[in-house]
């Protein structure tokens, strides 16, 4: 059992969850994730770790409201207990002094990219952070990101920020403009990561993506999260979650993520009827 310390709506469809998990907080590194179960009847779902505080013994994740599991998480209050909060799982992100690194994030990935960008900055990189949001009111953690970025560039379709263009286009032009981009890290919805990987493919800039397939145990036991990288089957939970985006079989990942689409809708309808009448 892990106690909820904080649960907060960051923007309309994205919440923050801070949990008392001292062992996870002591061990975790940028790029790792936890498996969470919202209640005794819940599903085990992976959440990327967005921040942690070893002294306070707390671990923070940011998640997008999608189905029943995330709905349940979004209703948690401080003091509530989670039956499952296990981690840190997966391999940490590869953090070295690469030179200039572009960190691209969208959606829950705005939170998830934060510890990676921070670690890359601490390792001596010049960090350029690109953020993509559908509308400017969906942007959060601006202050946190500004502090650790040499440049912060935000793209929102309603153009209150730097641009209206989808961020992979910006990534493409940035690679031209900067002359030397040594590495790209992208986290967010599968489509964003796919498009970022495609954007950097022509220039051959290594692009790491943090994959988010469906998982169950998160320790390599079930194989639900298998993805094809370089033609080989990999388990995202133990071999990843970070992979070279240029090696991934994206159409397969898209279809596997939709495995339970109808069931998810059904489950959500049942949950909402029970919860809200």
């Amino acid at each position, binding site marked *: 059992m892990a106690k909820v310390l904080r649960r907060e709506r960051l923007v309309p469809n994205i919440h923050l969850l801070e949990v008392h998990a001292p062992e996870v907080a002591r061990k975790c590194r940028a790029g790792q994730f936890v498996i969470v179960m919202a209640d005794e009847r819940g599903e085990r779902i992976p959440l990327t770790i967005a921040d942690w505080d070893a002294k306070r013994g707390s671990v923070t994740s940011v998640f997008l409201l999608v189905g029943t*599991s995330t709905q349940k998480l979004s209703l948690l209050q401080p003091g509530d207990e989670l039956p499952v909060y296990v*981690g840190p799982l997966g391999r940490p992100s590869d953090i070295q002094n690469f030179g200039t690194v572009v960190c691209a994030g969208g959606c829950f990935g705005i939170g998830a990219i934060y510890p990676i960008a921070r670690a890359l900055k601490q390792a001596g990189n010049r960090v350029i952070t690109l953020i993509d949001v559908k509308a400017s009111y969906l942007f959060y953690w601006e202050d946190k990101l500004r502090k650790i970025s040499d440049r912060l560039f935000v793209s929102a379709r309603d153009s209150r920020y730097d641009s209206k263009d989808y961020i992979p286009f910006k990534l493409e032009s940035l690679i031209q403009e900067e002359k030397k981009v040594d590495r790209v890290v992208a986290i967010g919805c599968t489509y964003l990561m796919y498009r970022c990987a495609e954007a950097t493919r022509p220039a051959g800039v290594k692009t790491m993506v943090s994959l988010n397939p469906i998982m169950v145990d998160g320790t*390599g036991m079930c194989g639900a999260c298998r993805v094809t990288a370089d033609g080989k089957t990999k388990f995202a939970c133990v071999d990843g979650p970070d992979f070279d985006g240029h090696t991934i079989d994206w159409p397969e990942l898209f279809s596997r993520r939709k*495995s339970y689409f109808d069931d998810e809708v059904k489950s959500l309808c049942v949950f909402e009827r029970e919860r809200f009448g």
Partner: protein
Amino acid sequence: MTEKPEISVELKERLRAEYEKDWRKELRKSLPIKERMKIPRQKMPEREPEERNRDFGEVNKGLDTEAAVQEARRCWDCANPGCVSGCPVSIDIPSFIKLIEKGDLVASVRKIKETNSLPAICGRVCPQETQCEMVCNLKKATGVSVAIGNLERFISDFERHQGQVFIPEIAPSTGSKVAIIGAGPAGLTAAGELAKKGHRVTIFEALHIAGGVLVYGIPEFRLPKAILKAEVDYLRKLGVELRMSFVVGKTATIDDLRKDGYEAFFIGTGAGLPNFMRIPGETLVGVYSANEYLTRVNLMRAYEFPAYDTPVIRGKRAAVIGGGNVAMDSVRTAKRLGAEMAAIIYRRSRQEMPAREEEVKHAEEEGIEFHFLTTPIRYLGDENGRVRAMECLRMELGEPDSSGRRKPVPVPGSEFMTEVDLVVVAIGQSPNPLMAQTTPELRVGKWGNLEVDWKTMATGIPGIFAGGDIVRGGATVILAMGDGRLAAAEIDKYLKKSHG
């Protein structure tokens, strides 16, 4: 694979002492062997196939007391019993059976629990027909053994139902902390044994329910979760602490635990890495590893979706690849989840199938199809990436391979296509690599298994022992328990030695 360890001199003497007791002599005299041989083997009552293949209730109903006593009378109470040598944990089988015949059921339970802390589980999932029952002297004489497994199940169910679980004497506290990694059959057994010896035992388990393969793998209809829960509660009563959702190697390493004061370790992390065939289409939606399929259904209770949140694909035409017990569990699960056609696809013939005879029989009764000498070569998907068909190849048996079984070889030109919307790959598991990856000093064998000294289960690193499927690959629950028991004795010796 059957292991028949030689009976030790010490065990022989212990069996003999029980055998010579007056009440045993009297009981033997009370009914001549000729009369005993007239009693037929008591049938295990089962639920009707057409009723049980639609739900997850237990298939076997268990013997009643009358039938159990009758079955116990069939046992000759041999001077040189074969059965004990067939049991990986050396249960004093004649004693517990004769105590049933005598009507002293409480004493019978205690007798089993001297050497086996999880009898309700063993009575259900042990392959007795290839162990104790195979070397039963009655079987040698008549071809039909005493139903030792059914009696073990009866006596442990009796204890649970009467509500008073016997707690054995616990040695005075030694103050030594022992970490058990993995709450499967090996770890649970080791934990119980070490707690009885007065050590402070903590089990670290990655999942949220204790039991390992007993909870994620074996379905409710074969091993009800309530039984497992009772066995785990029993360990708690012995003073064992359980830390769930704790992945040793990730949440903390063995070195971290050493700093927290743990002096000895038992690694029982099992064979949790699913094998695939590496054929085209294996990542299509609707193709599962048996581990994932069974974990969704058993651990996460997908059969109660949407009351439980975890879904599972309910195929109308289900194919399960493999011929072991895991394959039987998967195919019978698919049937229960509404498959109109649920089939086993096995590359050898029925004779070579490693599944227990009872499971095969139950599967057949429930309407499972068996396609022998057949292997899939690729899966085909629809426009949404969901499996819709599989292409198979016929096989024939060639020369025996290293396992002694005749090797299946493809029949050229025998490819054929069949429609399926659910595939479960149940061709075995490999040892879980997590411990070896995060504890680099451990010696790893060529199958990814941890290497140990079989006499002591020691890994070679002081204080670290291992057992069960993490050293054996995919073996049985009872062999894992045997390892846990042996390792516990060795850990006890190690701790005594290191404390002078």
